[in-house]
């Protein structure tokens, strides 16, 4: 039977935001322009920060407010800003990527969401947190981030997919365990930041080396080389 009516409004709001988050993952798969992809990613970060703040309120865990703020600064503001600047500097804001097989990608995405639900069922049955239903959403976001990386040729899209995976992981921590210990969260945030910086450095190397950021052209190393 439907239990949603029995939850207070904040918990319903968290689940609602979780639905919007998975929707944003689907939207990212459908974006053709890099700038709009980064935009949707920023919205996803914002939604996650909101969900975390609401969780902090319902679960009475004040350290989650800090995590929410960290996620907001990093994923909704700093990293999208860095990526947008890179897109402009590398002259890529006019490029449109032709999506190969959009219907197959969307079907695969829906199957991945179903699969992630199936995988985390035993965990959902054990958990007593109100956000336990959202664990499936977090694994879904992780898998859809990977799908995004697989179906794209632009290096920047790969970075967005990578960061989307980190988003999913953050959401998993919030929805399954009401956040990881503070030191671990800080460490993860630091790693993500350094990774973003290194990506930025990388783009210039790739761009200057092969004159484009089309990762399909990085194909000199293979088992068939002479």
């Amino acid at each position: 039977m439907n239990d949603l009516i029995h939850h207070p409004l904040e918990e319903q709001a968290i689940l609602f935001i979780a639905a919007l988050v998975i929707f944003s993952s689907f939207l990212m798969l459908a974006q053709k322009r890099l700038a709009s992809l980064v935009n949707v990613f920023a919205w996803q970060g914002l939604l996650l920060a909101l969900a975390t703040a609401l969780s902090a309120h319902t679960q009475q865990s004040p350290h989650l407010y800090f995590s929410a703020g960290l996620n907001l600064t990093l994923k909704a503001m700093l990293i999208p800003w860095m990526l947008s600047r890179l897109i402009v500097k590398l002259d890529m804001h006019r490029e449109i990527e032709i999506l190969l097989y959009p219907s197959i990608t969307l079907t695969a995405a829906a199957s991945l969401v179903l699969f992630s639900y199936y995988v985390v069922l035993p965990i959902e049955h054990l958990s007593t947190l109100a956000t336990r239903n959202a664990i499936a959403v977090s694994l879904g976001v992780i898998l859809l981030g990977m799908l995004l990386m697989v179906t794209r040729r632009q290096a920047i899209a790969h970075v967005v997919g990578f960061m989307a995976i980190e988003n999913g992981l953050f959401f998993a921590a919030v929805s399954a365990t009401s956040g990881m210990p503070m030191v671990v969260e800080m460490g993860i945030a630091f790693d993500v930041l350094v990774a973003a910086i290194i990506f930025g450095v990388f783009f210039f190397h790739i761009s200057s080396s092969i004159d484009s950021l089309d990762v399909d052209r990085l194909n000199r190393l293979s088992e068939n080389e002479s």
Partner: protein
Amino acid sequence: MNGLLATLEPLLFIFISPLLAGWIKWIKCRLQNRRPPSLLQPYRDLAKLFRKTPVVASHASWIFEATPYILFASMLLAVAIIPSIAVHLPTASIADVIALVGFLALGRFFLILAGLDIGTAFGGMGSSREATIATLAEPAMLMGVFTLAMSANTTNLAIAIDYVLDSGLVLRPSFVFALAGMVMVAIAETGRVPIDNPATHLELTMIHEAMILEYSGRHLALIEWAGQIRLMLFGVLIANLFFPWGIAETLTPDALTKGLAAMLAKLMELGMLLATAEMMLAKMRIFRVQDYLGFAYLLSLLGMLSHVILEVG
């Protein structure tokens, strides 16, 4: 009393639907800074068409002449079962959404055949386009409705609306997604911009209009009227399924009047939104329609997934 109410329902639709069409046209004209025709103009158009003699091609089959009547009758059947001003109408027990889709499909089937019947190029083109869109839109609509049905544990519209009314204010992600999907499907099914421009005169861009190019006189009047009823049907369906507040839950005259007023208000609101959207969007190229309907299907599917994953258990 029951019989009276049962006949009142379709009569309501028959007489209000041209008004809705007129209202939408009125809003569009005002938004475009034009002087709009009178709100009663669609009635005058229908009356004019009824007075004229229909001209039928000599090699047309019985399908061509029967289709307007079949279409109109199936529309009447469809609107007879939808709860519009009251939830517990006499027809509530047969108000099954699958029956509804079946009635709509019946009308559309005959219309497609009628378009092919005479053998003109444009008729065939319209029919094939309509069939394609129907094939893609129907799963999306069914998926959206099933999402609702899963929450309410029934496909009966009356019981579903009762359920939504009883739950009070609940933020259901599945409903939001299903609403978005249904709105997109409704636009495709009723042939509005961005799928099909109802006011176009360029045959190659037509979908619905191309099928009915050969019709005239009272046949055309019935078909046009059926189209207007269809638009009102979708409007009432969306308004009452997702925002049912105001609908009469008992059959007292007081509640019924309130229900009528609520339905008219919601229809006015939806009409305004539709007119604004039509103003802002451009008609899509035909091959993009599949992406649009695929997206509608995806939204409904997400609604279903949200329901299963987030709302249950």
